[in-house]
């Protein structure tokens, strides 16, 4: 993968000037390359990684395993695309193994998520079964540890 993308994955807010120095190029080149990636649809967005425990939020997140019936034309794609459009669905993946779709879902309360599953997901034509697991605590998200790394305890000057 392009080193520029690797760096943006670590910190998407890094300045063009710094990225340019790290990659031995100019800030103009960095801007042009990012614009091209956006145009080509390689970069799909830039988001903050939050530790929601530090927020006064009662939002709940759940992981839902879904078994679905593939269709003669198009396999899983039509129903999967349909499910992915629900705003409650934050991420969704087609999986190998004991179930087909893995959904990461967010709601304002446990009840809201439960309603979403029972009233919206389960009745969908083609959905065979659901299994919902509520998340209790986030330790690491998108490669970011939720608790900060231990303090740098190296000697301040050493040979």
């Amino acid at each position, binding site marked *: 993968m392009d*080193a520029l993308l*690797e*760096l943006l994955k670590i910190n998407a807010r*890094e300045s063009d000037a*710094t990225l340019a*120095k*790290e*990659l*031995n190029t100019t800030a103009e080149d960095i801007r042009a390359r990012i614009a091209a990636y956006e145009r080509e649809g390689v970069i799909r967005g830039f988001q903050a990684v939050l530790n929601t425990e530090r927020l006064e939020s009662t939002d709940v997140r759940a992981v839902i395993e879904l078994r679905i019936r593939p269709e003669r034309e198009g396999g899983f794609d039509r129903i999967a695309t349909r499910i992915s459009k629900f705003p409650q669905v934050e991420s969704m993946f087609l999986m190998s193994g004991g179930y087909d779709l893995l959904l990461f879902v967010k709601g304002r309360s446990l009840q809201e998520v439960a309603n979403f599953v029972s009233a919206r997901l389960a009745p969908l034509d083609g959905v065979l079964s659901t299994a919902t697991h509520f998340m209790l605590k986030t330790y690491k998200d998108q490669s970011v540890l939720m608790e900060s790394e231990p303090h*740098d305890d*190296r*000697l*301040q*000057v*050493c*040979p």
Partner: protein
Amino acid sequence: MTTASKSAHDFIAPHVRGLPKSGIRDFFDIVAGRKDVISLGIGEPDFQTPWHIREKAIESIERGATRYTSNLGTPELRQALAEYMRHSFHAEYDWKTEILVTVGVSEAFDIALRAVLSPGDEVLYHEPCFVSYAPLIRMAHGVPVAVETFRKDEFRLTVAELEKKVTPRTRALLLSFPNNPTGATLDQADVEALADFAVRHDLLVISDEVYSELTYEGGRATFAGIPRLRDRLIFLNGFSKAWSMTGFRLGYVCAPAPLTDAMMKIHQFCMMCASSTAQVAGLEALKNGDADIVEMRDSYHLRRNFIVASLNEMGLDCFMPRGAFYVFPSIQSTGLSSQEFALRLLNECNVACVPGTAFGACGAGFLRCAYATGIDQLKEAMERMSAFIKRL
């Protein structure tokens, strides 16, 4: 008649009394205890030791593998080292008789020098260099002979400079590339020329290649595996830099059997063996740690690009080093001495760098900046430094 009794000071051996304190130590004392200092003075990786390596060490303690090992090091580790030397350095060493595991490269240096030097033997070494070399030579009753390296050569050691200092008493050539503090590396052509020099003057070569895994853009050249040096090379390496394992204190030495045997005598009496836990960790690093090296090296590489560009931008001449994690900018354009610059930078901007003179007299006019520090810290340090220079 009573004789005057000795004070504690009088019991110190003269050759130890004469050792200078490390210039780094002086600076450490000044920095120690200060808050909010961004330190570019740390000669140690900022990465945590990779988790799989730490986990193996923990597991070995749980298993109770906490006894002495073979003096030479565990057979498994020595076999893995022989394999590593083969595929990484294209050098053949017999794990049974030619590889010795030590407590860091520092011990390896110590036993190597003690094994080969007689009082008065001269050892050529290059400056600027790691702070231990001259003291270790002195402690082995040798005579350190510094050979200068220069900015114009990007701090490579040249045969021309060596020829000026070699005498009939010269016994060994000690070198370390990639280099701490300059980041200098050698090309294979440089290595060949230095090898010819060693053969021509019948010298032993002691090569510390502890930064060998941290080279960029092909800066990797080695003294290992050169046939005409086979009988006159002591090769030193360790795990500290490649796998960020400084506190494990694990190094090793590869040398022809008679030399290994001589070093082994000293090692078995003064050290017994390297830590058993560290040896387990080292074996895991060799077996499953290739990807760790790549990840850390790639990160250092980007930071190096950033810091070199930033220093040159603020008017401090700095060549693009191809190894280790140090840059060695010239601060001569500021009119300050290395010591003055480092002290004022610390006092006025809370940024710690080590004056070049801590690594030898010819480091005057330079500064060592370690970039084994996160990019955010580096950015902040460069901003403070740039503002400092504008104020001068």
